[in-house]
């Protein structure tokens, strides 16, 4: 307990500092610290659980179970991983266990790729085979205006587009780009290979970029 508090003070990274403070407070039974962690991670945990379970309701149950696991394990948490990574790993473990018990466990690595994924950019935006500059842009992307990119509705659109992604792409992009985990952490939490993670991330980012492009170049207002 003391160790954690000391580390919180020494920690050079503001985010980590804050997390160590929360862990220390949680060990002391601080309800506000618990709620802060719940507020911060619950949504991402439901997404992780949703990768293993078919309904939002069972995913929510698995996450409730994961929080109990967090509380039970908090005294033994040694900080080899970040708090976030540790909590997400417990979540994946609980969700996986539940899907095994329900007899519907399918290893993520053996799932078919999510539907027919087309190319990152529509083929008609490139010059056709046989043209002088075959496969180079015929309809190139236009730079995005910073103030429109920063607008609230642009973020809302990105969120909606992430929600629409197939479940594995959505989870990987959420953990990597929204939550800011690194690829090793994501592979460990989800039990997928680095190559698999990279393909899912590429597809997810390509689709979200395409949606933003459509919004920023046409319909949307600044």
């Amino acid at each position, binding site marked *: 307990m003391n160790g954690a508090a000391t580390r919180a003070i020494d920690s050079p990274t503001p985010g980590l500092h804050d997390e160590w403070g929360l862990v220390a407070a949680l060990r002391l039974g601080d309800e506000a610290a618990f709620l802060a962690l719940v507020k911060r991670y619950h949504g991402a945990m439901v997404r992780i659980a949703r990768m293993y379970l078919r309904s939002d309701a069972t995913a929510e149950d698995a996450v409730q179970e994961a929080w109990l696991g967090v509380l039970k394990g908090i005294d033994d948490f040694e900080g080899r991983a970040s708090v976030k990574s540790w909590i997400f790993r417990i979540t994946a473990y609980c969700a996986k266990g539940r899907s095994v018990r329900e007899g519907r466990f399918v290893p993520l690595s053996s799932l078919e790729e999510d539907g027919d994924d087309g190319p990152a950019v529509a083929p008609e935006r490139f010059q056709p085979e046989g043209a002088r500059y075959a496969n180079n842009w015929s309809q190139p992307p236009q730079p995005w205006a910073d103030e429109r990119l920063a607008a609230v509705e642009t973020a809302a659109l990105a969120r909606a587009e992430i929600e629409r992604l197939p479940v594995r792409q959505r989870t990987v992009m959420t953990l990597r780009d*929204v939550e800011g985990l690194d690829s090793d952490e994501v592979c460990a939490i989800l039990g997928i290979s680095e190559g698999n993670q990279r393909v899912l991330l590429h597809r997810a980012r*390509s689709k979200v970029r395409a949606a933003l492009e459509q919004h920023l170049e046409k319909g949307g207002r600044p």
Partner: protein
Amino acid sequence: MSATELSCRELVELASDYVERRLPLAERTRFEMHLCYCAPCRVYLDQIRATIATAGRLTEDDLPAGSRETLLAAFREWKKTP
């Protein structure tokens, strides 16, 4: 153009891996050579980076109704057990 040069159509499929720093050296070199002379692909790469940055600004939604109470009850229960 020589066969070893990347086309724009190939580049867009590698943009995320490039940002991830996962391209092997030879492929990274071809990627960066292409960027040197292709302004539209520089715009594309900027857009992939802007997409990642936009995702990074999102915060999680509020808790579903009921979750907070259930979790708080579980927390208080946990606190009681030594």
